[in-house]
Each structure stands twice: as C-alpha cells, then as structure tokens.
C-alpha cells in the first residue's frame, strides 16, 4: 500500500504544486522557486522510498481505476528499466529549479515559470512510470507542451539568432512528428494486443514479421527524434540555444534520455531480440555518424551554448551505438551513459549559463581567461570537460568503456574502432572549449555583470542591466549587447 501511494506521489506532488502555483501566482511570486524545489525534493524522496521495494524483487504498481475506453486501464509501475530514468529526471528537475533561483529574477509570472518546470518534470516522470500506452503518450505530450510554453514565453533571443517563437514552433513541430510515429506504433500495438497495458504487451504480441519491422522502425524513428541523433537532431541546437538555461538543462540532461527510455521500453522489451537484429548495424552506423558529426559541429561552432548542444548530439550517438550492439555490455553501457551524460551535461550547461549570465558574451572569440575571474566555475567546467572526454576515474569513462566493449563483442571491428577513435574528436572539442573560455588571454571587453546567486558565488554580485539591453516584461535571462 505504502509503495503504491509513493508511486502516485512521485507524480501527484509536482502536478498539484504546479496547479497551486499557477492558481495563486500573485501570492507566491517570491516563494515560487523554493516551493517548486520543495515539490521536487518530495517527489525525489517518494522515488527513493520505492528503491527498497525494487531491491526486494517487487515492482510497485498502481491501477488508477480509470477506464476511459474499453481495453484501456490507466496504471503506473516502476521497474529496473524505469528507475534510473526516473531518478535522473527528478534530480535534473530539482537542479533546474534551484538553478532558476539565481537565473530567473522574480516577476509577476515567475510562479508560472516554476509551475511549468514542474509540469515538464512530471511529464517526464509520468512517461517513465506509466504502465499503459494511453498514459505514456499523454505524459509524453505533456512534457512537449510544457517545454514549448517555456521556450515560447521565457526563451532567450541571442543577437542575430533565431526568434523564440520560430524556435518553439520548430521544436514543437519536429518533436511532434516523432510523437506521431510513436502514436501510430502504439495504436497498432493496442489493436494487436486488444489491451493497452504494458504488462499485457510484455507477455508478447503476435504480429506478422512485416508489421513487426514496421513497428520497430516507427519506434526507432519516433524516439530517435527525441534523442536528437543525426539527422533527426535539427530541432535541438536552436531549442537548446533559445530555451532559458534551467529549461536547457532539463532538455539536455533529462528529456533527450526519454527517447532512449522509449527504445528500451518498446522495441527492446516487447519484441524478441531476433526481431531487432536487422536494426543492429544501422543503429550502430547512425550512432557513429551522430557521434562524429556532433563533435565536428561542436568544433565548428563558436557559440558556447550551441557547442554544448551539439555535444549532446554526439553523446546520443554513443548511446545509440551502445543500444545497437544488442548485447549486455552495450545496452548497460548505453543506459549508464544516459545517467552520466545527464550529470555532466547539467554541469556544463550550468557553467555555460554562468558564463553567459556573467559576461553577457556567448561567442568563443569574445571570451578567454575566465579561469582567474571564475575559479570555482572553471574548476566545475574542468571536471565536466574531463568527464565528457572519457578520462578514467570520472563517470563517463565506465559507460564509454562498456559501450566500446559491447561494440567489439558484435564483431563489427571497423565500426567499433571508428567509434573509439571518433571519441578523440570529443576530447578535441571539449579541450578547445575549455581552453578558449577559461585559459588564455582575458578579453578586456568582457563585462562582469551578475552571477547567479545559487551556483555562482565566485562571480561579481551587483545586478546591472546592460546599457544596450532593452527592458523586458519578465526575463532574467536575456543576453547580448
């Protein structure tokens, strides 16, 4: 009983608090950030309480007792596949909310900002613990709606960059296209099984080989859009660049992983591994291309936020490569990489946020020598850069090793070696980024303005609006001259 309640609380707390913040927004202008963080902490506690249940071999599951139509039974369930994703999402949501304290100046609609952050987080958590296709897709779309609203209302507009309306539109359209593919596949599955419960689907659905291949293709393409692997990544750089930094952290560190969760939950859980065998090599090839392509784009970019955004494309390539190996090493490595990438990417985006917020500069050629001015930030960046480079004793090393080992187990030596040597490009752009921003000569024109209170204690502290920056109704995130 208690685990069932906790499972519901994981979702209910952020949603209820989001509604309260939205309804009583005039009351909670200043306290909204703290209340949202409290909700995220409670949600995290509820998820942690469930871990002993899983360790004891039980999977907490709740039937919500709602049957909107025949064959649809809304229910929640937590298992070992969903747990790492759930914890990652809640922790990243908490980090994003806390980061928002310093990044987002309190305004009239600040409670709405935090409410939407919570809804975004709840959308991801709900997608992860949903145990039926209807609830899964509902939460899947909920996170899209929340994130689009956040970009649309609070997005940055870098000088010369795209307009936030255009970016929000592009992001919504592209990810929704992917969602539609997933929806079609879910409807076919529902039609074949006669029920929408994952428990029923996991027991096996009899499908013709052609239909199975079509379904797997739809799932891979649909979830590939969310993962943002090449060439389905086109929404990502702009969305990451324009989104306010807390949202960028959630997009990069948590939402991308939803695509991986989808692949693990549907094609890899509901079909025999033999059905996936024809997709192994294409997944590995796309993974390697994405890895190298993302790294090359990161090398070519000069906007610090876009560099880290393209880095996500590259890192998703590693993960897809690992999943494509279809062996234990590769899949476990890929799943671990999701968690480690989330940690490292949240750290790097937080660092980039501090840099942009502090200097009002976002291009590499305008930055340099910040290590002396922001030593703590520089140290954090160094850890992130070394981690993403796969340096031993830092987390990403383990997952990369397992992914590469999985690649070699498949016998596709050339692909595996290409992936391994492609990781050198990751080292190159990570070091390039770090050395250009924190080492070398400090630009005189870098103007120290304001450091986020929450995570930038080493930066200048006086808030000051840039002379050329136009006043905005509610934006503590606008940058540029």
């Amino acid at each position: 009983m208690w685990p069932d309640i906790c499972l519901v609380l994981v979702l209910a707390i952020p949603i209820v608090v989001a509604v309260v913040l939205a309804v009583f927004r005039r009351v909670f202008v200043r306290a909204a950030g703290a209340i949202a963080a409290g909700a995220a902490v409670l949600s995290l506690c509820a998820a942690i309480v469930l871990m002993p249940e899983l360790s004891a071999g039980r999977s907490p599951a709740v039937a919500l007792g709602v049957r909107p139509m025949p064959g649809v039974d809304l229910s929640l369930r937590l298992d070992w596949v969903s747990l790492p994703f759930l914890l990652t999402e809640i922790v990243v949501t908490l980090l994003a909310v806390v980061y928002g304290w310093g990044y987002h100046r309190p305004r009239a609609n600040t409670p709405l900002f935090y409410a939407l952050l919570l809804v975004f987080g709840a959308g991801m958590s709900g997608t992860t613990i949903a145990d039926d296709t209807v609830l899964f897709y509902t939460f899947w779309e909920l996170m899209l709606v929340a994130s689009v609203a956040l970009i649309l209302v609070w997005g940055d507009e870098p000088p010369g960059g795209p307009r936030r309306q255009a970016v929000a539109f592009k992001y919504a359209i592209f990810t929704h296209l992917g969602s539609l593919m997933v929806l079609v596949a879910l409807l076919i599955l529902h039609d074949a099984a006669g029920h929408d419960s994952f428990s029923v689907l996991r027991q096996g659905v009899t499908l013709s080989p052609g239909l199975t291949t079509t379904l797997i293709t739809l799932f891979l393409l649909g979830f590939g859009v969310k993962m943002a692997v090449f060439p389905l990544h086109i929404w990502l750089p702009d969305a990451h660049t324009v989104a306010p930094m807390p949202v960028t952290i959630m997009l990069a560190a948590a939402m991308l992983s939803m695509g991986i969760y989808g692949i693990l939950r549907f094609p890899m859980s509901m079909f025999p591994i033999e059905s996936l065998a024809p997709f192994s090599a294409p997944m590995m090839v796309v993974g390697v291309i994405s890895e190298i392509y993302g790294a090359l784009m990161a090398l070519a970019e000069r906007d610090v936020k876009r560099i880290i955004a393209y880095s996500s494309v590259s890192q998703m390539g590693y993960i897809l490569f690992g999943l494509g190996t279809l062996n234990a090493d590769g899949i476990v490595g890929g799943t671990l990489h999701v968690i480690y990438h989330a940690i490292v990417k949240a750290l790097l985006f937080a660092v980039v946020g501090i840099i942009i917020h502090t200097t009002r500069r976002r291009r590499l050629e305008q930055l340099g020598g910040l290590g002396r001015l922001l030593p703590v930030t520089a140290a954090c960046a160094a850890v992130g850069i070394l981690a993403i480079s796969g340096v031993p004793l830092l987390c990403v090393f383990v997952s990369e090793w397992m992914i590469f080992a999985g690649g070699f187990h498949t016998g596709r030596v050339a692909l595996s070696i290409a992936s391994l040597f492609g990781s050198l490009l990751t080292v190159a752009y990570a070091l390039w980024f770090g050395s250009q921003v924190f080492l070398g000569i400090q630009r005189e024109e870098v103007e120290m303005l304001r450091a986020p209170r929450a995570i930038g204690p080493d930066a200048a502290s006086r808030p000051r609006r840039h002379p050329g920056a136009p006043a905005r109704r509610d934006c503590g995130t606008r940058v540029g001259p």
Partner: protein
Amino acid sequence: MLAFSAEREVHLGTWWPGTGAMSLHTGGVGGYAALATSIVAVAAVADQRIVRRYTILVVMVALAAANVAFYAGHFLLRYVALEVVALSVAAAPLIEAGGAEGTRNARLAYVLLRVGDAGLLSAILLLMDASGTLDIATALSAAPGLDPAWLAWVAAGMTLAAWVKIGVWPLALWKRARRSLSPLTGMWLYDVVVPNLGLYLLYRTSSLIASSTPLRWLIFASAGVSGVLGIARMVLRRQIEPEFGSLLGAVALCCAALDQGTFVAALLLAGTAARVVFALSAHREIEDLGAVRGPAFYPRGSAVGRWLGALVGKPRDAVESEAPGGGSAGLWRPIETAAELLDRVVEHDVLEQGIAWLWRSIESVAALIHRAVERDLLDQGIAWLGRWTQSAAEAMHRAMERDLLDQGIAWLGRRTQSAAAAMHHAIEREGFERFIREVAQTVNAAGRVLQRWHTGRLRANLRWALAALLIAVVAFSLWGW
C-alpha cells in the same frame, strides 16, 4: 625492493562487473623499469627551476601512476594508470608556463597521447573479446589464436600506443610541450616516464607486433626517417641529448618488429640511464654558457664534465667561436646545410605544416559541413520547406478556396440560377403552362363540339330513336306472337 622481489600477484578487487579482479605483479622487467623511472624522478623533484610547487605534485602523481602501470597485471588498471600519466604530462606545461603557449602545448600533448591510448584501448577490447579476460598475461597469450585480421588490428593498436609514447617521428610532436617546462622536470616527464611506459609496452607486445608484416615495414620506414632526421639534428646542433630519445625509440621499435623483446627491455634500462646523463650534461653546458642555471651534477671543469661535454654538447670554446664571424667551414658546411634542409623539410614543412594543415582541414571540414548541412541543408532546407509549404498552402487556398470553391460555388449558383430560370421558363411557361393551356383549349373546344352536338343533332337523333323503338315494338309484337 619490489624490483628484486619474487614474482607475486596482488589483487586489488573488481572495479565493475565483467572486468575481473585488478591485480599488480611484482618482479620482472616491470619492476626494473619502475625502479629506474623512480630513481630519475629524484632529479625532477630536485629541479631548482620549477616555477610552481604544483608541478612537484604533478610529478608525484605521474610517478605513482607510472609505477602502477609498470606493475599492473590487468589491462583496465594499466589503461587508467597510463591516462593519469598522460593527464599529468599535459597538466605540467599548463601549471608551469600557463598562457596561450602552455595551453596549446598541454592540449596538443594530451590529444596526441590520447590518440595512442585510443589505439591501446581498441587492442585491449579486441583481446578481451577474444580471451574473455582483461588479465594482461592471459589476454596476450590468447592473441595468437585470433583471426589474422583482428590480430593485425591488435598489433596496430599496441604499436600506435607505443609509438606515440616513445615519441618516434612522426608521432613525437607532443614532446614539444617540454619546452615550456623546467629542464629536469621536462626531461623526466617527457623523456623518461612516458617513453619508458612505451618501451615497456613494446617489450610486452613485441611478439604481437612482429606478427604483422605490413606493420613491420611501416616501423622500419618510420624508424629510418626518424634515424636520419635525428642524425641530421645532431649534426646541426652538435648535441646528442635532444635526439637521443627519438633514436632510441626508433631502435626499440625495430627490435620489437623483429620480436627482440629482450633488447627492448635492455634499451629501456640502459636508455634511461643514458638519457639522464645526457640531459644533465647538456644542461651543464647550458649553465656554462650562462643561459640558465641548473643543479651541479658534476664538478665544473672536472675530467668527467669535460668528457661528457665533449660527448653530448657543443664545447664551450666551439660555441664561443661561433660568435660573430665564427662558424663551420670545409666539409662540415655542406653536411650542416643538408641536415638543416632535411630538418626543415621533414620536421617543419612536412610534420608541423602537416599537423597544422590537418587541424585546419578538420576545422574547415567541420565548418563546411556545418554550413552545408546545418545551415544550407537543414536550416535553409527547413526554411525552404516552410516557405514551400506556405506557398503550396497559399496555392491550394487560392485553388481550392477561391478558384475552385468560391468561384465554383458562384458559378454553380449562377448555373443553378440560370438552370432554374431555364427550367422555370421551360416548364413553368413554355412547358407545363402551355400544356395546361392547350389541354384547357382542347377541352374547351371539345366541349364546344359536344355542346354543338348536343344542341344540334340531338333532336334528330331522338327522332331516329323513337322510330327505332317503334320498329322494335312492332318487331317484338310480331315475333312474340
């Protein structure tokens, strides 16, 4: 003491499942290599020209990691130790020199060492796949049973790792970072620790390397170029020390290619001692020239000093004689010119320019792909798709809504109206009404005819009727009777 102890295995535990217990092996060549490297470290730590105390920390970390690498009996442990050494080597110029040059040197050193480590990792993972273990001895013993193509990959990976570490042309560029370090620290990090690790790797894998004929010829060719280049530089600078490591490495590579592991081990130990002597004596000469000050390793003006100076460095009087107006003459001059030309062509024109060109090419290709794919193909493609969709929608709107539907409906209305009018005219006026009129007229006429009949001939007919009745009565009267 460990070097002289009996061979023993110490288990350190398992890092993560599937990798097996990590272990250290005492004794053997690894022990001697560790001993030699550690002894020389004393000189590095005692270097009075170390600018920052952190450098000593880096030296200590590198020493510890190098010793672990020498003693490691497990590939994972060895790889981690090698990476820590690589990080230390890259960190030293960053700490010691800093600035743009230190940053560039550190980046170059780490990326190039990482190239070697990528080769090593690919070989390790292939061996692990073949043998199922990361235990170095077991994995190497399983190597001969590998598929020839895989064996060639393993040999190539190991050779690449050793090649980079030893610093043989053309993979010796990372050693340039030494210039920004204090002489003895630089000597230890760049000419002792890393090359010794490379030589030890060669010693362990010489049989593998010798098994690949193409690799063997590649090694001979490169060693030849490296040898000629080294001799040319010796001629040019009249110093042995800077080129000694490169020549030693080339010889060691050739020994490994000939499966002479014992010679490689001997070169490791003898070469370490020789390099120290050469380095110290060369710096003594520099001290004599008043360039920089170094530790007094041998008494000034002693017989040993004069002998070493004559052997490894340019005699002081010779240097002084090169002051204005001085220089070489006779047969020596063309040799020097040829050496200078060779050095410039091979080292500067081919290697430096080549590396610079390679980096520029990567950047250009990345920028080109970025422009072509991200901006032209994807961004503009999407923009074009958007514009096209908008135009198509407008055309469709024009065609369907305005031309086809609006005008169609208007035309249809008009047609309907005219059809109705025609029908009205045809049916109501010309058709039905006329018919009725004609029917009415016909009926009217018929009526008049009947009336005429009724009023005209009826009387005459009645007479005929009376006559007929009369005849009938007469006839029946007569007949009846």
